[in-house]
């Protein structure tokens, strides 16, 4: 179901299996970047370290899938996919699934959960009740 990680992103997926949501922090300018990349898009520095994130963010947008042909998802409908902006740095965006108990809404604060299925770990987001 998950396309293979590439050399740039392997550390992200490996850490996710240990239930750590991570992004690269540039050694030169100190900014975070996501998705995984071999170069900092802000200063073009090549050295970076993987760093655990807060796991908190807000919903920027979402879709509700009612019909889809993909064999991994066809029997899961309806499901809500979300675009989350992480609290750690403005503009740091990633996709995820929304916990079915959470009603989607614009700017909703959300918190990450980790879902282990088979040999894969993915993220799911739910309303942050902190």
């Amino acid at each position, binding site marked *: 179901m998950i396309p293979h990680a590439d050399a740039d992103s392997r550390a992200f997926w490996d850490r996710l299996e240990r239930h750590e949501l991570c992004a690269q922090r540039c050694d030169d300018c100190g900014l975070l970047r996501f998705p995984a990349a071999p170069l900092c898009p802000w200063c073009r520095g090549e050295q970076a370290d993987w760093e655990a994130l807060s796991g908190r963010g807000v919903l920027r947008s979402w879709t509700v899938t*009612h019909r*889809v042909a993909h064999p991994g998802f066809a029997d899961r409908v309806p499901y809500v*996919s979300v675009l989350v902006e992480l609290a750690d740095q403005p503009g740091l965006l990633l996709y995820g699934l929304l916990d079915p108990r959470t009603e989607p809404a614009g700017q909703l604060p959300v918190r990450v959960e980790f879902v282990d299925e088979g040999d894969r770990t993915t993220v799911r987001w739910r309303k942050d009740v902190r």
Partner: protein
Amino acid sequence: MTDVRALRGAAAVAGIGWTPFRKASGVSPLALAVRAVRAALDDAGLDPAEVDGLGTHHLGDTAQVHEVAKALGLDGVGWFSEEYGGGNRFPALLGDAALAVASGVARHVVLYRALNGRSGVRMGGATRPMPGPDLQWQQPYGVLTPAHNYGFAARAHMQAYGTTSAQLGAVAVAQRCAAVLNERAMMRTPLTLDDYLEAPEIVDPFRLYDYCLETDAGCAVLVTTTERARDLRRRPVTIEGWAAQLGRDDLTKPDLTTSTAATIAPRLYALAGRGPDDVDVAELYDAFTFTVLVQVEDYGFCAKGEGGPFVESGATALGGRIPVNTHGGFLSEGYVHGINHVCEAVSQLRGDAGARQVPGAETALVSAQPGYLTGGTSAVLLGVG
């Protein structure tokens, strides 16, 4: 050439051609490509042996330029372009062809796009035709089809500006009205707003009629200098300006409610020496209804955030202030990945569009996919030679 504006009107579209639009063509993409190319050459009255340039873009789903040259017995092709890429490419390719003929590198360039988009490689199915590292961030979360990517943008626009489903529906209804008048269109049954709203939700915020049509078809256009085009059979349609841009993709864009079209619009209008008020007809990339709504804003036909009320007012329908997708667009004519918008714009500027003709049309805007997913887009302004 010291001033890029010297390119304004230097090249022209001298011929256009289509195959029928079908759900199952029963022939190969190569057959579709060569039929479309021959139709464009017949339209112009040009002998195939005169063709010395060929170009296309594709997602691994079409006949390559060397196959088309071989099939047509073309021995003199000295300029060719075959780009791996999707809906953001065609107007940029038209600009590349204009450069080639204006510089004298080629004399007669034929551009085509041919695909069995329904019976062959489907874009909305279980797999993406364009693989890449980006998919690892999307597929695990059910972000599987173009409708998902555009759906995130449409939802963001709805949240920011109060855009409604009925306003998306207004795009589908207006374009269907145009398609009813177009003998090539795949969908010619009238569509009401109630039909739109009652249709099944697929990937909310999109319902069935928000989607373009998976189509088996080929289209082609012949590009030459405007001077040479005047010696051919049809009235030249001039290439007045074009612009292309690689922009931020969906995970690096700060705001999904503005597309890369907003970035290229000023450059496009400056090169062509025309502005949005000069545009008589616009063929705007409509993979989904939403892309029309965001582009009428980003190309300056209305203010940012006003796209919903603008399309709902009838401004983009035939007879409206700026008729958009006068052939029915990808939503109702068929989806040939961008090129059929150029064919329709050329028909309109020649005054050949029959019952759907926009009276006195002299300037047409044709846009590509406005930059969702990968960030890239392109557009061209066409005029009357």
